């Protein structure tokens, strides 16, 4: 396996990768909970997914280097993420057409919109 980290004179171990994944996850959660734009939330969700994918790959690399299970899962996550983005964006476009906004604070019709009686 080529050592791509030789240039910096430091080979990151399992812990470093997990910290990176956790940081990514925390940023994703923060984004999901705070972004007002639905598109921003979607991007934050991508962060969550990627942090999970990274964890898979890292554990694969460090615990059973001979196997490829974790890498398969990572590819799978990427595929799901792509599909999810398509569906989510389609919903957002539809929402925008109706309400001229994708601000999550304003998208509370299921609860608060005046129901026609």
């Amino acid at each position, binding site marked *: 396996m080529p050592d791509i980290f030789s240039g910096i004179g430091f080979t990151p171990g399992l812990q470093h990768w997990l910290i990176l994944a956790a940081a990514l996850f925390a940023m994703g*959660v923060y984004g*999901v*909970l*705070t972004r007002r734009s639905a598109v921003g*939330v979607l991007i934050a969700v991508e962060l969550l997914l990627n942090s999970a994918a990274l964890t898979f790959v890292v554990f694969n690399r460090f615990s059973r280097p001979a196997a490829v299970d974790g890498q398969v899962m990572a590819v799978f996550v990427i595929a799901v993420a792509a599909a999810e983005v398509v569906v989510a964006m389609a919903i957002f476009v539809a929402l925008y057409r109706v309400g001229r906004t994708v601000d*999550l*604070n304003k*998208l*509370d*019709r*299921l*609860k*608060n919109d005046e129901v026609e009686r």
Partner: protein
Amino acid sequence: MSGAVAEFPLALRYAWVVAAIPFVSFAFVGLVLRPLAPRAAGVVATLAIFAAAAMAVAVAIAYYGLYPPGAEHPALVPFAVEWLRYQPGFTIAMGVLVDPISVLLIVVVTSVSALVHLYSLGYMRGDPGFGRFFTFMNLFTFSMLGLVLAPNLLQTYVFWELVGVSSFLLIGYYYERPSAVAASKKAFVVTRFADLGFLLGILLLGYHGFTLFGEVGPAVARDVAGRIAGELQPLDFLYLNDPALLARLAEGGATVGGVGLLTAAMILVFMGAAGKSAMFPLHIWLPDAMEGPTPVSALIHAATMVVAGVYLVARMFPAFAASGDALLVVASVGAFTCLFAAAIGCTQDDIKRVLAFSTLSQLGYMMFALGVAAIDRPAGYTASMFHLFTHAFFKALLFLGAGAVIHAVHSNSIWEMGGLRKRMPVTHLTFLVATLAIAGIWPFAGFFSKDEILAAALHGGHPLVFGVGLLVAALTAFYMFRIYIVTFLGPARHEGAAHAHEAPLVMAVPLVLLALGSIGAGWIPFASFVGLGGEATEHGVELAIAIPATSAGLLGIGLAFLLYSKGAERARSGAAALGAVYRTIKRKFYIDEVYVFLTRRVVFNCVARPIAWFDRHAVDGMVNLSGQTTRWGGRLFGRLHGGKVQAYGVWLVGGTLFLLLILWSAVR
């Protein structure tokens, strides 16, 4: 055991058919014919009751074929099916008890009911509720037969309530009339109140009977083996009337409210009987029950249902006799009601009300006859059943005759009748027969039964009761001839009476048949058919009793002719001379007013209002509180549910972290 039962004559094994026929007819007439072919409903219902009457006679013949008159007459339970199973050794059966008094009652009930049904075909013709009437009449007949055939207390109670319901339905038959509705409610409430006592009595008796069942039961079961289908059960009359059990109950020394256990239980049972048989002070519903159609009054409120109370006391007679005090209560209440109702009967103007009070009075006779009897002196018991038997005929006849008159005159008041002797000869003659029978004139039926009752009272050591009976005999003759004279003799006092016509044939035939019964029923040697076991002592006519009794009757008749044969002037001056006494009697001793005072003022204000307050504020308050709490809780937590996706997300993440924290601290 069941082998012996299987050898009973066919009619006895299928005695339940007597009650089943009216039930099937009730269902068929009520569900199919009433809506589709109301005119056929009456015919089918009537035919069904005639079939039941034929079956009842077959049962009677079979029973007395098995145990000839004069011999011992044991009670049989030829048919029983398990109905309720509470625990092993305590089941309740629905079945049929055949003994002299139940045979007597099924014959009386079915035959009188059949004749009343026939009469109703004419009386109710053209009535908009024709089909409904016959449906209820069949229901009543079924219930009454189920009641008299019941082999245990619980079945008795079920059918007891069923006759109450049918009576309620039929009193309120003209439901568009507020007075009929009020009368039906009154009858229902008063009898229900009495039935509360009955139920408590059943529970008391059933509980203690069941406790002793393990001890006493096997011996009793050996005694009755071969006579009953199925197992002996703790609520069976055959068990409850057993001397060994009654001795145990009486000696136990347990008391309920200060009186002995057995006495308390029997007085409670008697309370139910007094309600159904309209004994003072629970009599108030019966006069009002005359709001129902006249055939109903004849069948239910004269001949059959109101004797159910007497029948119940007779059915449980050994238990009553084992508690002398309870029997004394029966005798006193009976004698008092007898006199009390006869006095009121002398003053009423509505022909049906006079007959109603007369029924009360005659029921009083039957009650006190039971009250003066004893196990070793069954003359009163026999006399009571005898009077029940003869009374059914002549009282049904009186009511049906009164119905024919009312049908013709369109009024209930005797002062709007008069002179009907010529216009309605058949009704007049049959009414006269019944009047003579109830007045106790030889050779009509009432003479014999009343004679036996009076003899039983005198020989039973109750001279006071005998005196009351004699006095009432005179009063009975007086008030019956009062309405006879005013209704049938003299000039027509009203437009309706002047244009009255004889009843149609279908109404006249039952009148004639009942009149034959009223003449012939007295000649039956009754003591050889109905007794308490042991030697049948045929009583025969005793001149020492018959002469005073007949003189009393003749005295009453003479007085009635004296006062009423020349118009009502003399009677009016007599009433004026009596003044306040007459007014009190005329207003039925203000008993209704007392009841109204007690219920409206005392019960409403002291019991009902506090309970209503408690219900509105405490009970409803609890319910409202739970509702309010839920609503407040909902509002509180509803705030969290604001529709903001990210707020939900915060809760999700926070909750997850919290749970992880707990998990972490637990694992560590």
